């Protein structure tokens, strides 16, 4: 039923990108260059965050300019749980003492849960609006959380919070860069699978239709609001998970993870790679980190060139990198 040629090609390109992302740190490791492993991990984590945003932005057409909120919340959840576990101080003691956790799976679960819980009211309010108002309201909520983190001294305020010992994963030594990469890469693959399944499901059909024509969707009896809200929450949970990994990667979390620049960066990743495309976030994150690294090494003004590239994509390649390579998307 699908447009055979286009899909195969897009899948092939996607698998190639994913393979390159895997080969890169392996080669770096063999050559004894751990820095490049960290670079690849950064790509994987940012790609994961962008996969999250791609659910809302790409499938649902919801231009959230506040996804840094969920990225940062994930980061703070990782930092806060780890610091309590490290200091052996309970986060709360009634009705039972909760000491935090330094186990990644627990941290991830909380990061996703808290992000989703915060996304629920934000989405419920923001999704009453659309277009530029939606952009502004999501930005406003993210800024509220940003300033809250800035002024909350218990967890470092504007100085941020260090994670003294990286959270652990059963059976792996996460202090080893390659192990950490494997964890992040594995989660990225799972997220890509989730994205693909979601997109092709009935829910995905409704979500895609809500972006194309919400009036039509309502006229066939599917109210767009609950579909969009669910997508927003799922999207936030995935981005929150990425935030937890990002904090663990840097062993540090600060309000900058919650900043509007971060929200913008996530949107840039999605647009660079290809909005709504399965492997778009992977392409976007790889390209972004490469530009940042290569041009950043040459000039401090690397973002000027990022801007030029983004301009080029928006003007001449609306489908992003994946769109250029694989052609237009066809929905069965």
């Amino acid at each position: 039923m699908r447009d055979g040629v286009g899909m195969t090609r897009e899948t092939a390109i996607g698998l190639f990108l994913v393979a390159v992302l895997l080969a890169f740190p392996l080669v770096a490791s063999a050559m004894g260059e751990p820095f490049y492993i960290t670079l690849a991990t950064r790509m994987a984590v940012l790609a994961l965050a962008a996969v999250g945003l791609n659910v809302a932005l790409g499938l649902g057409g919801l231009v959230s300019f506040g996804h840094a909120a969920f990225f940062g919340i994930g980061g703070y959840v990782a930092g806060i749980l780890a610091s309590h576990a490290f200091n052996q101080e309970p986060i709360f003691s009634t009705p039972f003492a909760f000491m935090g956790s330094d186990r990644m799976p627990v941290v991830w679960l909380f990061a996703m849960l808290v992000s989703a819980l915060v996304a629920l009211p934000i989405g419920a309010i923001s999704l009453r609006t659309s277009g530029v108002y939606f952009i502004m309201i999501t930005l406003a909520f993210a800024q509220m959380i940003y300033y809250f983190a800035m002024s909350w001294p218990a967890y470092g305020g504007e100085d941020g919070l260090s994670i003294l010992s990286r959270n652990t994963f059963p059976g792996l030594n996460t202090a080893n860069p390659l192990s950490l990469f494997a964890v992040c890469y594995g989660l990225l693959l799972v997220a890509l699978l989730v994205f693909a399944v979601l997109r092709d499901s009935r829910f995905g059909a409704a979500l895609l239709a809500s972006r194309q024509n919400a009036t039509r969707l309502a006229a066939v009896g599917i109210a767009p609001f609950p579909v969009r809200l669910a997508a927003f929450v799922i999207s936030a949970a995935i981005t929150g998970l990425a935030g937890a990994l990002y904090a663990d990667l840097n062993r540090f979390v600060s309000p900058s993870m919650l900043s509007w620049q971060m929200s913008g960066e996530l949107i840039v990743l999605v647009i660079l790679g290809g909005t709504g495309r399965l492997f778009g976030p992977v392409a976007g994150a790889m390209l972004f980190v490469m530009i940042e690294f290569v041009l950043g090494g040459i000039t401090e003004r690397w973002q000027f060139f990022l801007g030029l590239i983004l301009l080029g994509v928006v003007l001449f390649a609306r489908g992003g990198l994946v769109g250029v390579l694989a052609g237009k998307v066809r929905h069965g």
Partner: protein
Amino acid sequence: MAEPVLSIRDLRKTFGALKATDGVSLDLRPGEIHALIGPNGAGKSTLIHQIAGSLRPDSGSIRFLGQDVGELGVAARARMGLGRSFQISSLALEFSALRNVMLAVQSRQASSFRFLKGVMRDRSLIEPAMAALERTGLAPRAHVPAAELSHGERRQLEIAIALALGPKTFLLDEPMAGMGPEGSRALTAFLDGLRQEAPILLVEHDMDAVFALADRISVLVYGRIIASGTVDEIRSHPDVRRAYLGETA
């Protein structure tokens, strides 16, 4: 007389000083095609919007299948069985014709919060959708994106989507708009048979189609129904001739 499927009583809607709907009462009975005609600006679209649920009346009631639907939104009324086509085609343009219809099938099965099974592998969605496309003659174009369909094909697709909802009432807003004479004739024949499935409230400018199809006609002028009756009654009604038919005939 059978209980009306759709019953509108004393509906009013004003926009500032403009009385767009000024005390409209209207019934749609089982098995009939009730045509709503009127000159441009008579308030037909405003009335359709209120029936569909996208516009809230200031006062008056709309009962559908014996239930007051005044508080229900567009989606809820559609799920009750109000199958609507739009004056200007309103489709998910990136989706193929098939996937547009599949959305309606999916809604009818009340199952949009299913996250796992791929829709393009789901026969329970594809088969009823294909059946609806076949009935409107659009099956050969099932896999063409709606954006690439011709104007007439989009009109057919609108009807196919409404069919797939398995509606209790069709609310068709100028289904012939922009169709050639041949397309209009084919659609007229199709709608003629459709009334057996569910009654049709038909807003249409094509008078040949209206006179060929309608069991009853209501004439809307300046937000008021100035006449309502059979084709012959309306044809000979002096006010109607003056207000409406005189302009076109």
